[in-house]
């Protein structure tokens, strides 16, 4: 059974990963975060809580997710490549690992209502799903622009019984959805549980969400050892806020000889202003309750991000990634919209697996790695979600005869 373990990379008592992380929220929320910290400390290593989580993981989500040896692309690239199939999870992505666990915690704390922010709608759908399952009220905040481009996911959330708020302020995308969710949370601080969708936000969220997603890397470790009897050379995952990546990496950070690589959204190129590469192009700052790398101007105003994938379209990143970057523990790189779209088609046609635009970034990176660097190497790529949600957008971008 998966249970989190104490890690060398846990934050300090106030939630700081080095200088990053922390709790930068209005005072009204501080007692709420303290309560959450206490409650999470009680369950973090609690057998009963995690056996409850496991029941849902196994029979509801369909875990463990497969580790699939992708022979066709392996042959093409001259490396041995495995795909961690988070796309096979119920609701279509890794997001549900986190929402099930936070939902159970909310229930335990006696909260009746959960809220969530969402970009592409994957986290919103995963939250609405869990709310339906556990009998909680659910309200989801989504930027107006995303509501329009992810119409189908908005319908799914409504079908699941959630109320969807279309956020009209600022850039009308994920950043503004999160602002509005925080405003709602401050206003309903006493009875509402905020299910944050990634390893960001104020402490304890970055640590807690990492623990919930680290089931991914925990499974990979067992699976790769039984298939290959050795550790992989490279592990690659895409990064928006960074939850599937940290979930994938966390059990390998202390393994010698394993290189973890996180892939940010390069948009139209990191030499343009249209990208979401906060680590590569941003600087440290405070947004949404945490200190981390941010895309910002010379006065510290937050800039709008851009990516083909709504899930990576965010000007910040989880604080643990900021720390791991500065410490040189994980390597970070970026992939452009075009490279991601090419990899989306590539995997679909080579392996019969249609990945999400987000995951396509990780695939594109491996595809682009120098042949001599990966020759005969063992590589694991996390396919964080499936591409179904991207069909309408893909249809407008791709032409097939």
């Amino acid at each position: 059974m998966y249970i989190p373990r104490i890690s060398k990379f846990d934050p300090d008592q106030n939630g700081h990963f080095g200088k990053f992380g922390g709790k930068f929220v209005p005072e009204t929320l501080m007692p709420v975060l303290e309560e959450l910290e206490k409650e999470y400390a009680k369950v973090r290593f609690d057998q009963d809580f995690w056996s409850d989580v496991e029941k849902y993981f196994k029979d509801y989500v369909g875990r463990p997710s497969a580790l699939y040896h992708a022979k066709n692309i392996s042959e093409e690239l001259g490396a041995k490549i495995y795909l961690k199939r988070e796309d096979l999870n119920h609701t279509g992505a890794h997001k549900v690992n986190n929402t099930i666990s936070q939902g159970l915690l909310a229930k335990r704390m006696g909260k009746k209502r959960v809220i969530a922010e969402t970009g592409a709608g994957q986290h919103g759908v995963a939250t609405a799903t869990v709310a339906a399952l556990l009998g909680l009220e659910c309200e989801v905040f989504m930027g107006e622009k995303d509501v329009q481009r992810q119409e189908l996911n908005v319908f799914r959330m409504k079908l699941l019984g959630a109320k969807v708020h279309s956020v009209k302020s600022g850039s009308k995308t994920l950043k503004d959805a999160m602002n509005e969710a925080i405003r709602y949370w401050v206003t309903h601080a006493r009875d509402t549980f905020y299910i944050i969708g990634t390893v960001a936000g104020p402490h304890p969220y970055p640590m807690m969400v990492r623990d919930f997603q680290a089931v991914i890397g925990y499974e990979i470790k067992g699976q790769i050892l039984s298939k290959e009897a050795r550790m992989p050379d490279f592990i690659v995952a895409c990064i928006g806020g960074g939850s599937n990546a940290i979930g994938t990496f966390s059990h390998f950070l202390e393994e010698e000889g394993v290189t973890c690589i996180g892939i940010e959204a390069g948009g139209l190129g990191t030499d343009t202003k249209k990208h979401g590469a906060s680590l590569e192009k941003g600087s440290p700052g405070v947004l949404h309750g945490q200190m981390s790398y941010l895309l910002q101007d010379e006065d510290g105003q937050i800039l709008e991000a851009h990516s083909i994938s709504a899930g990576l379209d965010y000007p910040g990143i989880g604080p643990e990634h900021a720390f791991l970057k500065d410490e040189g523990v994980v390597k970070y790189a970026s992939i452009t919209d075009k490279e991601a779209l090419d990899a989306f088609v590539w995997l679909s046609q080579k392996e019969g697996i249609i990945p999400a635009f987000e995951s396509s970034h990780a695939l594109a990176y491996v595809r682009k790695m120098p042949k001599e660097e990966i020759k005969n190497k063992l590589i694991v790529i996390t396919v964080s979600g499936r591409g179904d949600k991207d069909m309408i957008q893909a249809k407008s971008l791709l032409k097939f005869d």
Partner: protein
Amino acid sequence: MKQLVAYITSGFPDKNFSIDVALSLKESGADMLELGIPFSDPVADGPIIEAANLKALQNGFSLNTVFDISQAISKNIDTLWMGYFNPFYHKGFDFMAKKAQDLGVSGFIIPDLPHEETLPYLSTAKEHNVALVSFVAPTDSKERIEKIIKNAQKFIYLVAYAGITGSGTSEDLTQTIGYIKEVSKTPLFVGFGVNAKTAQEKAKGVDGVIVGSAFVEILLDGTLKNGEKITKISSLAKEIKEKINS
């Protein structure tokens, strides 16, 4: 006499108008001025102040705007900067504290910098004679209140309800005010949702009120000319000052 702290969003609609509004607020009875530094993502603010923030940024606000306004008014009215932490951090807290001191600004009000996160900055603030105003919320326990206001400076900012600025909500604050008064003699001001209607009620048991959205709403009113806005803001300030002291 109970005090009135007025908030305006700096540089909205422009720098010179902010200076005129600030000076007329002083004449109308405001004791302190919170000069708001617009931020792209003001999560503690309701729709009124958020709109003013975003419009000021669209109009080309830069930190120099707030520096210029401060210089022009700080001799006339006790001036503080109110803003989210990122611009302070990005420019360098040392730089901002020194700048504040040079421009005669007496304190910072930073809503997303709770007690625990202020600790690394206290000595710099002290060195430059800049007060870091402590917030208390109605969700705080007695123990937490004791911890966070032990060294409160200038005044304590009591948030009137769990929520964002400018909403119509109200909460019974008697117990929270009691806890604060037990441990601190620092003046206690209540803010959030204070307007002509609510001022008298909200000022009960405290030493003053902070008014933001009610003034900014007038600034945002497109049907008024600049001169009319100033007249309206002045008479609102006078009315509130009178109500809290009656």
